[in-house]
């Protein structure tokens, strides 16, 4: 007989709750009676809220659990909360979206929850195996979700492109992990860390392994040479799915980078030298090409895709800086990025004209006349994405650039600031259209439903709160990053 290990439910409580919620939704959806969409949404929201409560009550323990599989530190608790908040917002948006588009809502919700579960698995991983399964759970769910609108040719195309590039990147990720395993003969990140400190740093296997893992994860967070898929997938996928790819998948990707490149309990000093340099280039390229690409876009989703690529560049700056300030800035900026991106997408989903999505920028002309509230919220998100003062985006950027300057990466910070200035052009262009252009002929915007208002409002509250009182999060972050 096998002696089963002690199971510490407490440390995976949020994940367990999300799993149970997903299965419950699946069971509800299987009931022979037709189920109203609102019931599915409410069930899922309830589960997410319960999980959020569990996540808030967790106390960080700076040691591995589940025989070395997970690491429940402050960072993971923080990321879990962030991802759960994001899931709740996406649920609200999807509810509105499914009213107009033929997606199988029950299965959609289940997959959405599974995707979130995958992301939350990444955030607690202390082992390459757990991390890999988390990445795959997240990716598989998102491949399917991006193809769920059967009435749309572009949705099918998006799912194929996302799948192919995603599978390709998985190949790199797995091979990289195989080499890491080979270099240290263990898949446990903590042990890999101690093996590196032990004198393993600089071995070819290790370098190659980390490089391939970086390529694999680079695809997932669309860092520049690996970003080709992002614009097409963002444009083609159903909008709430795009939002979750932009926000959730990117946060999860950075969580994976954090887990691998700053191994639990150890800073990445041992190989900081190699990684700072590699990520310096990636970050630079990403900022320049992401922002340049966004300049010429006319489709909002495509523009947001390039904007999200550019933000990946800002975020990865923290890995170059490779210090505590950088880590805190990264975690803060992830929260800011989550709220402003989801907010912008929430508005895009909420605003419709004659039942159709307004996907090109001129479509939004005159929005402020009819829906001043929604237009105002959109302006807040765009200002924050651009980095105007008093928004979360500003504080986050300041913090990130500060971390880079602290480590004397002046050129990187300068490029960051310049590209930020550049980005004002394309963000403000939307605001100009919303406020200063006459509406198009016979353009009447549909009424914006409550779910859309709530989602956008909550996101805006987050953006403004973090922008005006960054101390709210600062203390939490200081406490959570203590152990690193």
């Amino acid at each position, binding site marked *: 007989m*096998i002696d*089963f290990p002690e199971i510490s439910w407490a440390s995976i409580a949020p994940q367990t709750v999300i799993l149970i919620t997903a299965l419950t939704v699946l069971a509800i959806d299987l009931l022979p009676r037709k189920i109203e969409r609102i019931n599915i949404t409410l069930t899922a929201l309830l589960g997410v809220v319960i999980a959020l409560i569990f996540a808030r009550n967790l106390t960080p323990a700076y040691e591995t659990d589940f025989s070395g599989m997970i690491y429940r530190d402050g960072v993971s608790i923080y990321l879990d909360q962030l991802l759960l908040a994001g899931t709740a917002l996406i649920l609200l948006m999807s509810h509105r979206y499914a009213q107009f*588009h033929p997606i199988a809502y029950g299965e959609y919700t*289940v*997959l959405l929850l599974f995707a979130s579960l995958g992301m939350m698995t990444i955030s607690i991983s202390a*082992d390459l195996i757990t991390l890999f399964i988390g990445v795959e759970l997240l990716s598989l769910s998102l491949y*399917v979700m991006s*193809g769920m609108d059967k009435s*749309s040719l572009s949705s099918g195309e998006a799912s194929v492109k996302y799948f192919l590039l995603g599978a390709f990147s998985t190949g790199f990720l797995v091979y990289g992990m195989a080499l890491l395993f080979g270099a240290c003969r263990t898949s446990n990140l903590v042990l890999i860390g101690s093996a590196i400190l032990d004198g393993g740093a600089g071995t070819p296997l290790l370098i*190659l392994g980390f490089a391939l893992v970086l390529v694999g994860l680079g695809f997932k967070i669309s860092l520049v040479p690996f970003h080709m898929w992002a614009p097409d997938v963002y444009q083609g996928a159903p909008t709430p799915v795009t939002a979750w790819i932009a926000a959730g998948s990117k946060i999860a990707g950075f969580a994976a980078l954090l887990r691998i490149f700053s191994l639990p309990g150890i800073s990445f000093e041992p190989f900081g030298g190699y990684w700072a340099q590699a990520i310096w280039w990636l970050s630079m390229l990403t900022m320049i090409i992401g922002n340049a690409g966004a300049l010429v876009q006319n489709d909002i989703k495509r523009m947001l895709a390039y904007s999200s690529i550019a933000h990946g560049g800002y975020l990865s700056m923290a890995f170059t800086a490779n210090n505590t300030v950088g880590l805190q800035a990264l975690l803060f900026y992830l929260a800011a990025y989550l709220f402003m991106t989801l907010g912008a997408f929430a508005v895009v989903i909420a605003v419709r004209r004659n039942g159709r999505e307004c996907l090109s920028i001129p479509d939004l002309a005159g929005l402020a006349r009819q829906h001043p509230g929604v237009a105002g919220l959109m302006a807040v998100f765009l200002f924050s994405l651009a980095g105007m003062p008093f928004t979360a985006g500003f504080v986050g950027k300041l913090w990130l650039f500060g971390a880079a300057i602290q480590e004397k990466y002046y050129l990187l910070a300068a490029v960051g600031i310049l590209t930020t200035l550049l980005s004002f052009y394309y963000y403000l262009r939307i605001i100009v259209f919303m406020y200063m252009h006459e509406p198009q002929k016979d353009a009447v915007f549909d009424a914006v439903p409550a779910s859309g208002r709530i989602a956008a409002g909550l996101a805006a509250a987050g953006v403004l709160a973090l922008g005006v009182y960054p101390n709210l999060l600062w203390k939490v972050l200081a406490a959570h990053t203590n152990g690193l």
Partner: protein
Amino acid sequence: MAATLFFWLCAFLAFFFGLGVIVARNPMHSALSLVMTFVASAGLFLLLHAEFLAWILIIVYSGAVMVLMIFVISLLNLQRDEPIEFTAARRWGVAFVVVFAAALLIYLFRDASVGFTYPPKPAISAEWGSAKAIATDLFTRYLLPFELASVLLTAAVIGAVVIARKPDPNEINGMESTGEEPSNQ
């Protein structure tokens, strides 16, 4: 001696059929080459004393996954592909991969920790690689990833069914209005 021969046989087969996967014009031949690559890899696993994995590889990959793949190929009635065109971008891609491969192999050779003729691990028990050893690890230390893998399979089943089934006409027409052009079915 026999083991050495067996290794070279499997290695040659794996390489030969691996090449077959990417050069065969007919998708069916590609798929069958992949099956043979998996069989050869299973041979390598046997040589590494990973008996259980070797058979799992054959049963799961050759027996289920690739049959599914072949099934799809013949359902879609795919004929021969166009020959590979070497555009400039592709030429660069090939050059990159070849350089990358050379770099990879040089790196591996340089590594002091992996000697060319290093003998197999002496301390490995007879149990190593058996179903029992893997099961014990899977149900104790790797319990969490194992459970997560089952969640992943659930997600994959749901996803595959949802996306591959024919759209229900009511599902499409019953909407208040569809945002984009209708599909061409």
